């Protein structure tokens, strides 16, 4: 079948989600849940009402899209960043600390300070994997992944120790001062960060399509040896740079989450954003603009998953099955496309 690539991509995306939902439905039914009730709760909770969209879907979409953009960039360069979850937490921790410390600063300075330190924290969190990969050839998949666990332990320590709220009772930080909070859309849980994210998506798209640096990044991911040998691309730098940027995105997402949505730090701040964003990026075929779309879709699923838990008793984490299926379907669809192209369609 010869379809224009954009249409094909959208079909695959919806097909993948559809199959994912089917798999979830069957799995739930086989485990004894009321699959139909669960799935309908899932839809309603995510897409069913204005409130669902503005206070459920969109606030979740912001970190998902942002992290997804970063992961997409890294994957495009051939760098498999599976540590976005840990980088997110690194950003959240530092942002919380900075926010609490800079409470007296004016908003115009405080907010950027919080966000920038979040970016830097995320980057620092991926620095060790970058060095290990470039210097010693250790697969970044493993190293970034291991650091996720370290970050989770770190958060636990912070909220039970140095960053714990003043009364010393609950494992969470003090609420962030008003000056460090991102402005919100009144009546909803959506914060101004979404503007930043959308702009970033556009900028990334331009970067990859129209700049030489973006082209070289794509070359590095598509053919590392050829890019280095014949294109004389400094693949090490491109690779490391892509990882740093993607970690910065995750860190920024963490900072935005505490500054714009939760206003404090606690354990399990992230419902698995770092992993879900992988599905978001892959489903969008690593294209920045498409990532916005897939991020919205999957954010809806995530928002719906808590409704699913409330109403049908299905643990929210079950929605991971959909994500996993989505990734696998996209992988297979990609393979099929490549195979048919190779055989010349004869």
């Amino acid at each position, binding site marked *: 079948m010869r379809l224009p690539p954009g249409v094909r991509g959208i079909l695959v995306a919806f097909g993948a989600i559809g199959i994912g939902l089917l798999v979830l439905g069957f*799995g*739930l039914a086989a*485990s*004894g*849940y009321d699959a139909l009730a669960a799935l309908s709760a899932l839809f309603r909770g995510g897409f069913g009402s204005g409130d669902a969209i503005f206070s459920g879907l969109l606030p979740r979409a912001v970190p998902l899209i942002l992290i997804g953009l970063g992961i997409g960039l890294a994957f495009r360069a051939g760098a*498999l960043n*599976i540590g976005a979850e840990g980088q997110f937490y690194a950003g959240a921790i530092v942002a919380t600390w900075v926010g609490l410390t800079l409470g007296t600063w004016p908003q115009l300075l405080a907010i950027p300070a919080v966000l920038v330190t979040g970016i830097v924290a995320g980057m620092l969190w991926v620095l*060790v994997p970058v060095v*290990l990969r470039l210097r*010693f*050839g*250790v697969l970044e*998949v*493993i*190293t970034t*992944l*291991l*650091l*996720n*666990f*370290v970050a989770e*332990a*770190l958060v*636990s*320590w912070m909220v*039970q*120790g140095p960053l714990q709220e003043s009364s010393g009772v609950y494992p969470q930080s003090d609420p962030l001062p008003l000056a460090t909070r991102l402005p919100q859309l009144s009546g909803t849980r959506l914060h101004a960060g979404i503007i930043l994210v959308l702009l970033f998506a556009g900028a990334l798209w331009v970067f990859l399509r129209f700049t030489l640096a973006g082209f070289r990044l794509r070359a590095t991911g598509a053919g590392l040896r050829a890019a280095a040998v014949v294109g004389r691309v400094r693949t090490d730098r491109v690779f490391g740079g892509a990882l740093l940027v993607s970690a910065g995105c995750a860190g920024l997402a963490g900072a935005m989450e505490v500054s714009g949505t939760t206003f404090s730090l606690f354990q399990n701040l992230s419902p698995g954003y770092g*992993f879900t964003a*992988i*599905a978001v990026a*892959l489903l969008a075929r690593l294209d920045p603009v498409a990532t916005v779309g897939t991020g919205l879709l999957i954010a809806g699923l995530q928002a719906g998953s808590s409704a699913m838990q409330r109403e049908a*008793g*299905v*643990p929210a*984490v*079950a*929605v*991971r*099955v959909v*994500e*996993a*299926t989505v*990734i*696998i379907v996209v*992988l*297979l669809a*990609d*393979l099929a496309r490549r195979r048919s192209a190779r055989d010349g369609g004869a």
Partner: protein
Amino acid sequence: MDMALLVGFLAAAVRVATPLLLAALGEAVSERGGVINLGIEGAMLAGALGATLGASAGGPWMGVASAIGAGILVSSIVALVSVRAGADQIITGTAVTLGAVGFTGAVYRQAYGPAGVGLSLTTFPILPVPLLGETPIIGPALFQQTVLTYLAFVAVPILWWLLFRTAWGLRLRAAGESAEHARAAGVAVRRVRAEGVLIGGGFAGLAGATLVLAQVGTFAENMTAGRGFIAVAIVVLGGWQPSRIFGASLFFGAAMALQFLLQSFTLGVPYQVFLMMPYLLTLLVLAGAVGQRRPPADLGRA
């Protein structure tokens, strides 16, 4: 240093190392064939759940059988999608683990109610080996363990023999070093790789059973907490050789058991630091180990 404390620590180290050793041995088989299976974490978790369900239904050995079956089942997805169809191994494995986390969480809640009521399953008893179990210090550490640990010990030479002294093992290694040449020599590369992945899955499932039936005594969501990935690191550290993997697993078992030892010293260090240690240690070791160790040449390539 109190002798009883030291012995207790060593015994804990071996006990904690057992699931790591089993998972690493399995992953080594898979990787010798050229397949990095990151779904091993998911397989281990599935094995833990399988052990829980099986043991509740029919006792510990039933649990072991279900665990191995669950591990093989989960790995079969990796075998199908990645080996048979040729999709990217790393992404496939990650997706499978993701899915396994979600699936096991859902199934467990359904079977045992919300908030996972603390089960107490009949676990495997300690089985001291006569004579050897009496030797000072290492006796209790190595030879007063459960039967699953002894199984793991025995698995080391068996797997060595399988890899290096059988025609199947030769075919597997050929597929891992150079799939193209192996194919030219008549090896059914995809089949032998898939077999390697399934064996790895079975071992991972068994490792999950060990967690439930010889350590913790119950299931908890995401209880493997990255042990599968640590096993992948152990394979690297052990240079894809069963005997060295044995040593590396003990090393990590000790690192994880440290928290028990040091907590009784109340150093004023928060316990989370001990939680972080195994992972940080893994990173350190990976940096030092790679370069000296050479992976199978076609590892990770379709």
